[in-house]
C-alpha cells in the first residue's frame, strides 16, 4: 500500500512538473522574454528561416455548425493576413503561424473547451475564438492562463475582459445606432427585436430596448430559435403587432424565413439585421424580392468592396475568392492581435502575461482605414468601447450584395450610453 502511495505521488509530481514545463520563461538573443507558444525555431511555413515562430491558435466553426459559412472565410482571411505580416518582416525576430493549431469547435462549448485544452500548451494566444457561448466556455481558463484571444463575435461582455481583444461596435451599440438611423429615416413608433436566445441575440435586443426607452418607441421583445421551420412564432408576432421597424439577430436562412414569411402576408415595415443575418445567396431565394424591399443591414465595418487601404490589402491577399464579408471580418479581427504582439515585442516581454500587459497599453489600433482612428482603445476599458456602425442596403450588383447607405457613424443614443455592465443583462 505504501509503495502504491509513493508511486502515485511520483506520478503526480511528474504530471505537475510536466504541466509547468510550458510556462518556463526564456530570453532570446534579442532580449525578448518568451514562455509558451514561441520558439526560436522557424515556423513550418516560414518566409525567413532565420526568424523564430509565434504560434497562435484558431478555434472556429469549420464543419457542421451553424456559422460555418462565415467561419471558413474568417479563418482563410486570417491565414492570409498573417502570411502578409510574415512577408512584410514578421513581428520583431519572429514570424507568426496560424495554420498548425486550427481546430473545429462545431459551435459547441464542450468541443471548444476540449480543443482549447488540446492546443493550449503550444500557443501564445488565440488568433480567433468563434462564437459567444463557445468563447464563454473557455474564458475563465483564458483569464487564469493569460491567453489573449480575438473573438469572432461582438457581445458587449467582452468590453469587461482584459484577455479579449474585440474589434468594432458590439451588438448592443450596433442596435442603438440602427435605431438612431431608423428614427431619422423612418420615424417609427413601434419597434420589435426578433432574436435568437443567448448573448448574440439578447445583446442586440437589449440595445434595441435601451434605445427604444430613450427614443420613446413602443418596444416588443420576441425570442426565436435556429431553423427555418421555427420562425412561425416570430412571423405571427410581427403580423399581429405590426412594428414599424424590426431589429433582427438570427442566421441568414432564418432571417429570410422571417422577412419572406411576413412580407408574403402583407407586412410592409422595415427590417434592420446585424451582419450575421446576411448572405448574398439570399437574393436568389424566394425571399429575395422581400429582402430587397424591406431589409437593411447594420454592420461593424465596411463590406468587402469598401475603398480603404486595409480592404484593398485584403482583396489583394485573397485573389480569386468569391467575395464574402466573412473574409472582411477575419481580416479586421487580426489587427489588434498584431498590435498586441508588436507592443509586447517592443516591451521585450512576449510571454503570455507580457501580451496581456501589452493589450492594456493599446490606446488605439491601426486598422489601415478599415475602422476609423481611435478604434481599438483597450487601455480605456469599457469606457473605450468603439461605438460606430455602418448601415447598408441590398444591392444585387455589389460584390457581397450590399452597399452602404450610411457611412460609419456614432448615433446620439450610443454616444450618451455608458457601458457599465453587459447589455444582455438588461433585457
Amino acid at each position: 500500500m505504501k509503495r502504491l502511495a509513493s508511486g502515485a505521488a511520483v506520478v503526480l509530481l511528474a504530471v505537475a512538473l510536466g504541466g509547468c514545463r510550458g510556462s518556463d520563461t526564456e530570453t532570446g538573443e534579442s532580449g525578448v522574454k518568451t514562455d509558451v507558444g514561441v520558439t526560436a525555431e522557424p515556423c513550418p511555413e516560414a518566409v525567413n528561416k532565420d526568424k523564430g515562430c509565434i504560434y497562435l491558435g484558431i478555434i472556429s466553426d469549420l464543419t457542421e455548425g451553424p456559422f460555418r459559412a462565415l467561419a471558413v472565410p474568417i479563418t482563410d482571411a486570417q491565414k492570409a493576413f498573417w502570411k502578409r505580416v510574415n512577408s512584410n518582416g514578421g513581428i520583431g525576430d519572429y514570424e507568426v503561424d496560424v495554420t498548425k493549431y486550427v481546430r473545429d469547435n462545431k459551435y459547441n462549448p464542450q468541443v471548444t473547451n476540449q480543443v482549447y485544452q488540446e492546443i493550449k500548451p503550444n500557443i501564445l494566444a488565440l488568433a480567433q475564438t468563434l462564437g459567444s457561448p463557445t468563447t464563454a466556455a473557455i474564458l475563465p481558463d483564458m483569464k487564469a492562463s493569460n491567453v489573449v484571444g480575438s473573438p469572432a463575435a461582438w457581445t458587449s461582455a467582452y468590453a469587461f475582459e482584459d484577455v479579449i481583444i474585440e474589434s468594432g461596435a458590439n451588438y448592443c451599440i450596433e442596435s442603438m445606432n440602427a435605431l438612431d438611423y431608423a428614427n431619422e429615416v423612418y420615424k417609427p413608433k413601434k419597434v420589435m427585436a426578433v432574436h435568437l436566445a443567448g448573448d448574440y441575440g439578447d445583446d442586440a435586443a437589449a440595445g434595441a430596448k435601451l434605445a427604444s426607452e430613450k427614443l420613446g418607441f413602443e418596444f416588443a421583445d420576441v425570442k426565436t430559435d435556429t431553423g427555418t421551420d421555427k420562425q412561425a412564432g416570430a412571423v405571427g408576432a410581427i403580423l399581429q403587432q405590426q412594428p414599424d421597424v424590426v431589429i433582427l439577430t438570427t442566421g441568414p436562412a432564418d432571417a429570410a424565413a422571417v422577412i419572406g414569411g411576413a412580407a408574403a402576408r402583407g407586412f410592409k415595415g422595415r427590417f434592420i439585421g446585424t451582419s450575421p443575418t446576411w448572405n448574398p445567396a439570399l437574393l436568389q431565394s424566394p425571399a429575395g424580392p422581400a429582402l430587397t424591399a424591406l431589409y437593411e443591414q447594420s454592420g461593424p465595418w465596411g463590406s468587402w468592396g469598401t475603398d480603404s487601404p486595409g480592404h484593398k490589402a485584403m482583396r489583394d491577399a485573397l485573389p480569386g475568392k468569391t467575395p464574402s464579408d466573412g473574409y472582411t471580418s477575419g481580416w479586421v479581427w487580426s489587427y489588434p492581435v498584431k498590435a498586441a504582439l508588436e507592443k509586447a515585442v517592443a516591451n521585450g516581454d512576449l510571454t503570455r502575461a507580457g501580451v496581456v500587459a501589452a493589450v492594456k497599453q493599446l490606446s488605439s489600433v491601426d486598422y489601415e482605414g478599415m475602422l476609423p482612428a481611435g478604434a481599438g482603445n483597450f487601455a480605456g476599458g469599457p469606457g473605450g468601447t468603439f461605438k460606430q456602425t455602418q448601415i447598408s442596403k441590398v444591392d444585387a450588383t455589389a460584390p457581397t450584395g450590399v452597399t452602404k447607405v450610411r457611412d460609419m457613424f456614432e448615433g446620439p443614443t450610443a454616444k450618451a450610453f455608458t457601458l457599465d455592465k453587459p447589455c444582455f443583462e438588461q433585457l
Partner: protein
Amino acid sequence: MSSFVEGFLRGIGVGSVYALLALGFVIIYKATRVISFAQPALMLAGVVLVSHLAVPLGFWGALPVAALLTALLGLGIERGAVRPMIGRPAFVVAIITLGVDVAIRVVVNIFIGLDVRNVHDPWGLGTLVIGDVHIEHRHIAAFLCAAVLVAGLFAFFRFTRMGLAMRAAADDQEAALAQGVSVGAVFALSWALAGALAAVGGTFAAAGGSFDGTLWLTALVALPVIILGGLDSLPGAVVGGLAVGVAQELVATYQNHTPWLGGNVSVITPYVLMLLVLLVRPYGLFGTREVERV
C-alpha cells in the same frame, strides 16, 4: 378566426412534411426493429441533391432523381453499415446509424458550400387568398404530395408481393424467412424507401425559403411524431405528423398571448404533445401493445 384557420392549414402543410419524415423512421423500424438516426442526414443529402440538380433538370426533374439517389444512399448504408450487424442488439445498430448520420452530414456540408442554398421550387412564397385567409402554395403542395405518396405506400404494402413480404417480415422475421421471404431484400427496400421519403420530405421543408447545414434539425421533430403515433404504425406516423404540425403552428399563432410561457414555446410543442399522449397511451396512438411474460 382567420388566424386560427391559417394556423391550422399551415400546420397541415408542415405536418405533411413531418409525416413523410416519420414514415421513413417507421418503415425502417418495422422491418429491422432499429430506430435509424441517419434519417436527418438522408434528408439533408436529398435536399442538397435537389438544389444542385434543379439547375439543369428543373425542380420536377430534380425531385424524383434526388429521391432515387437518396434511396440508393439508404441502400448503401444498409449494405455497408447495418447488414453486417444483423444479430447484434438493436441498440448497437441504432448507435451506428448515429455515427453514419454525422459522417454523411459532414460530407454533405461540403456540397452546401459557404452560401445558403434553395431548392428552386415553383411555389416560392406565393399565397392563395380566400377571404381573409392566406394559404401558402408550398403548404398545399406539401399536403398533396404527401397524400399521393402515403396512398401509394399503403397500396404498395396492401397489394404487391413485396409489400406483403415486408408486412410478413415485420410481423415475424423467422416465420417469414421460413416461408421464403428474403428478409435481406426487405431490409434493403426499407432503407431505400426511407431515403426517398426523407429526400421528398426535406425538399418540402426547404421549399419557399433558403436552407443551410442546420436543416437536418427539422428531421428531429419526426422523433416525437413516431413516439406519439406509435413506433411501428404507418397510419400513426401520418396522423402523428399532422397532429404535431397543427399543434405546433397553432401554438406559434397564439404564443404571443402567453409571454409567461417563455419565448417561442411552439418549438417544444411536439415534445409536450408526445408526453401527454404517452401518459394516456404508453405505446403511442396506434402502436402495438407489447405483452411480456414475467
